[in-house]
């Protein structure tokens, strides 16, 4: 099992190739010891004769050692154990990769969006239609995240836009390291748009910052109005909802206003665009929102 994301070993693929390098810092403690190696070798063995544990070996603990604690002595009732305070966020490793991505994107004036939704909400179709509607007016690149297959990247490439597929194997979300690696493989133009289509999953991607400017949640009207309440973390983490497949509303009992009200219960500031990739409804508003973001990202680069 991959020791960072918990996915199957070596199953994360970018563009069909395994991740180039281990995600862990060089020289980290090897905690999966090889057979026959000392289980807990002493980092600084004492000179011979200066304590019971002065040698490197696999412990069998046939003696009780009271001299090797931090105080070098034992007081009745006091444990030799001591506390190491670290006070670090659990996601701090991912967040530091995300900050690197964000810095790179800012320096190059690139506007990056992290598109999140359940499977089947129409993300890829919406992306294809958006890319066609932009019609080359904006340089853009797409990173596709799925557990398996590069079908989605192929659909994007068919529009003429460069796309790279990340396969997460057993993983349920993209993380900032994967996206950073993908960004290095892609040639990102200055002042361009980067669209990252996350793995279809309304749970896990909420916690993993990729370095994007905004998370955009796609909710289709063939789902339930209460999705924002069922999956509040994702709707709280997002800045925009694309309420997709709105052309189907006349045929459904879906109450769009109730869905939006539910989303705003979780995130009072969330913006909503009603959209349909099929009929084109709301597409202008969505594309204008993207263009404004791109202008701001580009002007941010000039200021910096």
């Amino acid at each position, binding site marked *: 099992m*991959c020791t960072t994301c918990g996915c199957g070993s070596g199953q994360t693929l970018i563009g069909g190739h395994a991740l180039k390098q281990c995600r862990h810092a060089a020289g980290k403690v090897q905690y999966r010891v090889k057979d026959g190696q000392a289980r807990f070798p002493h980092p*600084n063995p004492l000179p011979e004769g200066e304590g019971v544990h002065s040698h490197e070996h696999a412990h069998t603990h046939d003696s009780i050692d009271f001299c090797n604690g931090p105080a070098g002595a034992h007081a009745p009732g006091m444990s030799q154990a001591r506390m190491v305070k670290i006070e670090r966020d659990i996601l701090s490793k991912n967040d530091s990769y995300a900050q690197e991505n964000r810095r790179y994107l800012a320096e190059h004036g690139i506007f990056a969006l992290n598109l999140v939704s359940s499977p089947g909400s129409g993300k890829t179709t919406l992306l294809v239609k958006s890319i066609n509607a932009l019609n080359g007016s904006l340089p853009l690149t797409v990173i596709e995240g799925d557990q398996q297959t590069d079908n989605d990247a192929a659909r994007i490439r068919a529009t003429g836009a460069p796309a790279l597929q990340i396969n997460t194997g057993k993983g349920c979300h993209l993380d900032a390291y994967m996206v950073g690696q993908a960004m290095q493989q892609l040639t990102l133009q200055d002042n361009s748009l980067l669209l990252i289509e996350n793995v279809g999953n309304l749970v896990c991607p909420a916690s993993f910052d990729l370095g994007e400017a905004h998370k955009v949640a796609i909710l289709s009207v063939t789902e339930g109005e209460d999705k924002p309440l069922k999956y509040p973390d994702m709707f709280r983490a997002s800045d925009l909802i694309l309420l997709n497949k709105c052309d189907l509303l006349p045929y459904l009992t879906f109450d769009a206003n109730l869905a939006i009200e539910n989303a705003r219960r979780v995130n009072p500031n969330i913006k909503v665009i009603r959209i349909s990739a099929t009929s084109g409804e709301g597409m202008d508003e969505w594309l204008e929102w993207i263009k404004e973001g791109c202008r701001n990202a580009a002007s941010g680069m000039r200021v910096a």
Partner: protein
Amino acid sequence: MHEMSLAEGIVQLIEDAARADGCTKVKAVWLEIGQLAAVEIDSLRFCFDAVTRDGIAEGARLEIIETPGQGWCMKCEGNVPVTALYEPCPVCGSYQIQVTGGSEMRVKEFEVE
């Protein structure tokens, strides 16, 4: 199942700190998990046991300090408890609440031998 990723993140933080400290056995780990954090604690415990196997934190006790959810109600202009992200203000019923606490996921400290 991103709890597996979180558990791996915890183990990495502990290992880095343990290496810097020169210790070789971690006996217990204290986490601070907010009531509003996107984490299932039972699942995290299960994953922690799995990923610490054969490592310096194998068999370590996992102590979880749950911190309460807190928010700032814009209508009441005051701090209010928040039990879930979709719940209204318990005082005025408004949903205009900014969460101010209870979404943290931190490794606070660990005990070494």
